[in-house]
């Protein structure tokens, strides 16, 4: 196996386990260093990708005679004026143009995807011929109307309106439960992935060794009150 791959693999194990030292509940330097290392590497990588993007999609076509990227490149350069106290205001021009373009692009279609089509979906038959489908449709219609009425603040909630708004409130609780369960599955999915990585046959010994060393160091440093001393400022 390539030596670099082995070193990268060991570093990945160390980084993962140093992150998990936060489970001890003690602020500690191992976690902080892992956090800084992650931020540093991600920033480095993102910067390179962004620079390549500018070169590939902006500078290269320009050198080949295409003038379309010129406007974008000029606006991009103007962004840098933010670092100047005197000319900082110029940066507002490219920012407002990019916000305007972004909004225009999104609003052109979002009205269909997130508004009209969503409303269209709630126009459905209450009886479809199949009991389960009919029940699902009924639940969708009732919960949609009730939830919208829950956010209707112009009239005092009393009588039937109060009852319907309560149904809306419970519909929201059920939706929160669904999202919580989905997130629960997601978070455990991430943990399983990491533990799968740590327990892979080629990494298990490294994982075990690093875990024991980290645990001993954490306990020793806690006992000698040196955890704070080595924390990065």
């Amino acid at each position, binding site marked *: 196996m390539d030596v670099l791959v082995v070193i990268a693999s060991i570093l990945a194990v160390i980084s993962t386990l140093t992150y998990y030292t936060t489970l001890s509940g003690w602020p500690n330097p191992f976690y902080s260093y892992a956090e800084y290392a992650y931020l540093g590497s991600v920033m480095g990588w993102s910067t390179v990708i962004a620079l390549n993007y500018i070169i590939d999609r902006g500078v290269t076509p320009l050198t080949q005679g295409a003038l379309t990227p010129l406007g974008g490149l000029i606006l991009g350069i103007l962004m840098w004026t933010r670092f100047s106290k005197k000319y900082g205001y110029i940066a507002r021009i490219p920012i407002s143009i990019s916000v305007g373009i972004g909004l225009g692009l999104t609003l052109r279609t979002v009205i269909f995807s997130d508004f009209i089509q969503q409303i269209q979906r709630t126009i459905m038959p209450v009886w479809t011929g199949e009991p389960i489908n009919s029940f699902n449709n009924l639940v969708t219609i009732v919960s949609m109307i009730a939830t919208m009425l829950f956010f209707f603040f112009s009239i005092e909630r009393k009588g039937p309106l109060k009852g319907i708004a309560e149904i809306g409130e419970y519909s929201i609780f059920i939706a929160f439960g669904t999202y919580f369960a989905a997130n*629960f599955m997601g*978070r455990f999915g991430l943990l*399983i992935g990491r*533990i799968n990585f740590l327990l892979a046959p080629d990494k298990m010994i490294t994982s075990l060794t690093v875990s024991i060393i980290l645990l001993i160091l954490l306990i020793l440093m806690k006992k000698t009150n040196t955890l704070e001393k080595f924390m990065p400022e």
Partner: protein
Amino acid sequence: MSEERINTVARPIIYLATFLLIGIPLIYPVGLPIKVSQSTIDFYNQIESMPEGSVVIMNFNVETFGWDELESQLVSITKHLISRPVKVIYVSDMALGPAFIEKTLKMASPQIEKHNKEYGQDYVIAGYLAGESAVAAIASDFHKLISVDYYGHSIEGTFLDDVKDGSDIDLVISVDCFGGTSPYIRHFYLSFGTPILTGTLGGGVPSAINNVQVGQIKSYLGGIPGGAEFEYLSGFPGVGITSSDAMTIVHLMGIALIILGNIVLLSRKIGGRV
């Protein structure tokens, strides 16, 4: 026992139990059955139904934190696409995405060799697309934005010569950490009616179901279970199937802990301590 004391004692026990309940089934798989859901079958059938020569965009909306959960989906979908007579454009709207495209293709290299897939003729890594404006740009004029691939090589002479705009794309697959499917819905589905498939983290499943019901996407895969089902269905077993036992067991532990926590809270309320 005081609440603080319970927290101090219970937390490490829960951490240890979680680690063991995940770790043991990973080392010694129990082999719990996998039931393939309708959404996964629809996902699979959509790819299977693509005619020869179809052009597919595969978007890696993947960050480091999401890789562990989405690995099974990304690798099995990629392997399945390689086994089909379709042409694939790999893109990512995340700066870290191209690294995961390369990693996934490396993991799928035996399939690439087996099916004699050639870079440029069967697949291309177009690389990073900076946000929704870039997705809109390739939908309206592909070559205006993309003239070179991720490695800086000209795309002239590749199958991308025949891709002019969104109407030449036959399918979009977006595997998401952060809602990467939405721009494709807006600029491909709404403008050209392009069918869209999505893979999501567990937390994205409710939104994906909504999009399927509205008809904006054809189907979805959700988290590790979705990846495991697709691995099983497509015949490319991987990390999803090996993780599914642990997933089931740790879910049972979670449900037990929620019930236990509520019993403790209820008993305290009855005892007048809350």
